[in-house]
């Protein structure tokens, strides 16, 4: 699993936020565009791309994109 790819896939779920805003340390829930619907898109993306089903707590307990990457990696 590649972190840069993950960040790219993560960023693809956003429409308005500039791609440069996404780094491993981005606190994604603090992004203006973040919403519960984008959370569903992230769950769908991880299911499609990595064949892993994220729980609500996986997202709630992650502050940064790297945190979420590590959760997905840990499940794969």
């Amino acid at each position, binding site marked *: 699993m590649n972190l840069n790819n993950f960040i790219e896939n993560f960023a693809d779920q956003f429409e308005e936020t500039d791609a440069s805003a996404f780094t491993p340390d981005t606190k994604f829930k603090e992004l203006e565009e973040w919403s519960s*619907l984008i959370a569903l898109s992230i*769950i769908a993306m991880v*299911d499609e791309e990595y064949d892993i*089903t994220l*729980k*609500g707590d996986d997202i709630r307990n992650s502050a940064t994109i790297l945190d979420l990457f590590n959760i997905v990696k840990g499940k794969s």
Partner: protein
Amino acid sequence: MAKITFHGVGIKAMAACVPSKVVYNRDLGYLIPKEEIEKTIESIGIVERRVADEDVTASDLAYQAARQLLDDNGIDTSSIDVLLFMSQTGDYRIPATSCILQHRLGLAKTTACIDLTLGCSGYVFALSTAMAYASMEGVNRVLLLDGETFSKIVNRRDKVDWPLYGDAATATLIEKGDYGATTFLLNTDGSGEDAVKIRAGMRHRITADSLVEREQEEGNIRNELEVYMDGMDVFNFAISKVPRSVKEILKETEQTIDDIDFLVFHQSNKFMTDFFIKKLKFPPERVPYCIQKYGNTSSTSIPLTIVSELYNKLDGHKKVVMCGFGAGLSWGTALVDFKDCQITPVIEYERKVTKQ
């Protein structure tokens, strides 16, 4: 896994009734930032919903749907042996609403009446119960009424739930006859009990404090008698179970996607259903939606989708897969063999007819 197959019973007729009052999601500016409203509507696919008046219940809507079905098909009320009422918003905690409906509909006192309660998976489970009764010696016809008025249990300032839910009721007449096989796969995982919940009840006794509105997660407001849903956990559950259960029913019944005329999902939200279709590679033109007009009507959504979207498309023999999933957690999938099903187009609730 409960795998059940019935022979010689089927759905003779269906009808549905919705409140006449329309609520538009574009008017949710007080709840959702204006610039996000369009995006939210597009994603959940819900433009408008129907909301019952304060004094109109799920059983009122179900009564009119039932009346319409009985009248349109010339069904003698004395021929109904069993009445099932599937709902989580019944009239009273005691007595069962099905008993009230028996009297109101003028059904015989020899009618067996039972209330059933489940969330969005409810119709599939209730249909299996109806078919089980209809299969038995001594029972010829079962009237299954499925109605919900979630507007009575959702807080208007809950931005997760309020944009989703609408009110509606449906009537389905099940009877013995020359029908093909119908197969059900019924499943439950109670470890997910917290994903969709109304907290106050017997476990947590209802007190004056239960009615106090409080700010909950992410600024959503509700009291303890109103429904809470963890959207992410429900989605997590749905994507891991729903596409698989559709594949399973095809495998169990030795059918392929090409054999299925229509795939009817519980109308949870469009984003989710679109995702399932994509995952299953199912032709989207054979997956009807009514969510844009009626929102998520809980267990009523599957029969409402059939009545609303397939009322002139189920002539002759048709194979329909239904898939309901939700609170419990509970999920059920059925492959139903429709034969000359008589469907009345959706009617709007008329106050004068039921005022007594």
